[in-house]
């Protein structure tokens, strides 16, 4: 009685409990030994199959993509940084002036300004309508005085406030620019 295909396969796969029994038969039976070596040759063939090289790098698909926007030129980055630094220095310089001058600043009332401008606008309209009604009387612009408007509303302290606000925007703007470009 020869060995079955199942016995030979299980023997080569190390999945049998009857190894000794099978080996005894193989020693005495050339036919079964030949069947076993044919199967063994197949195992060797399958083992010999070389690994092939992967044509493209799949890993690249999973890595974070580099920024699509081109990097800012180096000089531009440097300029932006220097500007931000200069603005920061100006802001620091301006701070003592705030504390000294801010209490002294008397901001002209906005409502007064508003009324002045409104009355100016109304008188302009009046003049225009008069001109349209009696063109013969001639053209003369009314001469108005703005008593309530401050003669020179922009004082030094106001300039510093403006400078400080501009500086803050500048720092934020440059910061955003650099940050967006880096990511």
């Amino acid at each position, binding site marked *: 009685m020869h060995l079955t*295909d*199942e016995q030979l*396969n*299980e023997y080569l*796969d190390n*999945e049998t409990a009857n190894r000794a029994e099978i080996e005894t038969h193989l020693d005495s039976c050339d036919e079964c030994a030949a069947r076993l070596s*044919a*199967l063994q*040759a*197949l*195992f060797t*063939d*399958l*083992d*010999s*199959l*070389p*690994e*092939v*090289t*992967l*044509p*493209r*790098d*799949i*890993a*690249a*698909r*999973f*890595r*974070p993509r580099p920024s699509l926007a081109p990097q800012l030129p180096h000089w531009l980055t440097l300029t932006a940084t220097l500007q931000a630094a200069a603005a920061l220095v100006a802001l620091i310089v301006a701070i003592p002036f705030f504390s000294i001058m801010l209490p002294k600043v008397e901001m002209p009332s906005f409502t007064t300004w508003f009324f002045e401008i409104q009355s100016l606008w109304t008188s302009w309209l009046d003049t225009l309508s008069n001109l349209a009604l009696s063109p013969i009387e001639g053209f003369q612009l009314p001469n108005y005085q703005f008593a309530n408007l401050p003669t020179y509303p922009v004082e030094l302290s106001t300039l510093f406030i403006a400078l400080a606000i501009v500086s803050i925007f500048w720092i934020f703007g440059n910061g955003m620019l650099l940050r967006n470009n880096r990511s």
Partner: protein
Amino acid sequence: MNAPTDRDLILRARRGDAEAYGDLVARHQTSVFNVCYRILHNRADAEDLAQETFIRALDRLHTFDLEREFSPWIRRVAANLCLNHIESHKPSAPLDEERDEDKTQSPGEQVEVKERSEQIRSALASLPPHYRLVVELRHYQELSYDEIANELDIPLSDVKSHLFRARKLLVEKLHAPD
């Protein structure tokens, strides 16, 4: 500094570190591609399925048991995906006629090895899909009968009959007396 282990990379990838997952893919992409190529015998399909394997694996990474090895797991995922692929797509593309590259041998030896490799690949490709998968899991992934039955969710008797019939067919193709 030592290279991070697969486990380190998996932990980082789970926290959303794409660079870590890229490194993990780079480590295993060739062996996964070879699993796919042995089963599908077509390079373009094998590339697609290898990529698909890593996409699926990323989705299931949180369920991966960190006590186990990543390599056998990802190779089994690949084998299963390939079987699903064969079953849902009847082969449209012709089987790959490309020859394997192996630069370690002299030109004479190289031609012989290439021809033999190609014969083996063709013989594998001629098997029914289920037979191919069992051969892949037994010979290339070195799973036991029980593990294969578990993996494919088929009875142990089916594992044996598929494997033994597959081998019989391969012997007939590869060792037929000239």
